């Protein structure tokens, strides 16, 4: 009897693996210091109890893409399982002097700059391997940055879903409506990844867009 049960279980597992839908790979993108890792940490803490990585007020804290597989998000009565990739901040320039302004030694600043350039390359390469993007924008900054324009353009060219997270609405100078006006063709949710403000609305939109 036990043998039959084991056989049934193995048979069932085999078919589950065979027909299992691949998890959608969702990249978290944005300029340096927009709050990408803060958001990734928030999502992971809410749904797995874990964290993605360290955060810092100094730009380019995340210099290697980090991937977390099988994050299940439940919203609107639906359940969606995603692979989440927290990418290094995209930039067109990296000057080690900016790190020195934060008190780093020259050698450390140069090393961080070198690692940051490698991180940007990695983030660009990931664009070819995604099923969708959460683009994190700092709602206190001008939304028309080249990084935002390039990421949005690449998602549109690939016809992949994009969700804009207008982050840092806990700050009084934030203006998520400016982001909405700049890119009206894409859904946007105003959030504070740090405080968790409006985060449930973001989960509902994630389930809707990437499910």
């Amino acid at each position, binding site marked *: 009897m036990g043998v039959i049960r084991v056989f049934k279980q193995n048979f069932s597992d085999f078919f589950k693996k065979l027909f299992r839908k691949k998890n959608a790979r969702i990249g978290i993108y944005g300029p340096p210091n927009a709050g990408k890792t803060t958001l990734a940490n928030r999502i992971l803490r809410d749904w797995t109890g874990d964290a993605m990585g360290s955060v810092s007020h100094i730009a380019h804290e995340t210099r290697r893409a980090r991937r977390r597989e099988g994050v299940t998000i439940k919203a609107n009565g639906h359940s969606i399982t995603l692979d989440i990739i927290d990418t290094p901040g*995209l*930039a*067109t*320039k*990296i*000057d*080690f002097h900016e790190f020195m302004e934060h008190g780093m030694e020259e050698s450390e600043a*140069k090393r961080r*700059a*070198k690692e940051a*350039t*490698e991180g*940007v*390359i990695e983030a*660009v*390469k990931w*664009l070819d391997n995604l099923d969708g993007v959460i683009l994190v924008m700092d709602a206190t900054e*001008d939304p*028309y*940055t*080249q990084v935002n*324009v*390039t990421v*949005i*353009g*690449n998602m*549109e*060219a690939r*016809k992949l879903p994009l969700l804009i997270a207008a982050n840092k609405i806990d700050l009084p100078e934030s203006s998520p409506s400016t982001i909405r006006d*700049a*890119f009206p063709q894409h859904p946007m949710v105003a959030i504070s990844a740090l405080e968790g403000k409006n985060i449930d609305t973001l989960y509902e939109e994630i389930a809707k867009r990437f499910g």
Partner: protein
Amino acid sequence: MKMQGIQMDLISEEKLAEMAPVEKVRFIIDEVRSGKILVLEKGLTPEEEASLIEMTMTLIDPEGFSGIEMESYPSKDDTSIFGKLLKKHTVRTRLTVVGPADQLKTLKKDRNMISALLSSHK
């Protein structure tokens, strides 16, 4: 009297159209590293912009080249009758300004205007 300043090249759509994507990116990087500001009449495709960022990162040198400043308008969908007839989704690229990061600084940008500051001092 010798005139001092920054060279600015305005590149026509036709000139870039003659080049393969990799040639475009190489051309832009080489020109910008030599200190020129380029104004591209029709800009680059989003994929070419991503390639340009990627190549820029490989060439950043702490002693000399800190990267590029690039500004383009958000792209638009091609709404031409020809495009609609073919039901083909294409993105219309738009004017783009590229220059060395230590000489070109964007002051303000919105949907229809780019305001930039040029500096001859590195």
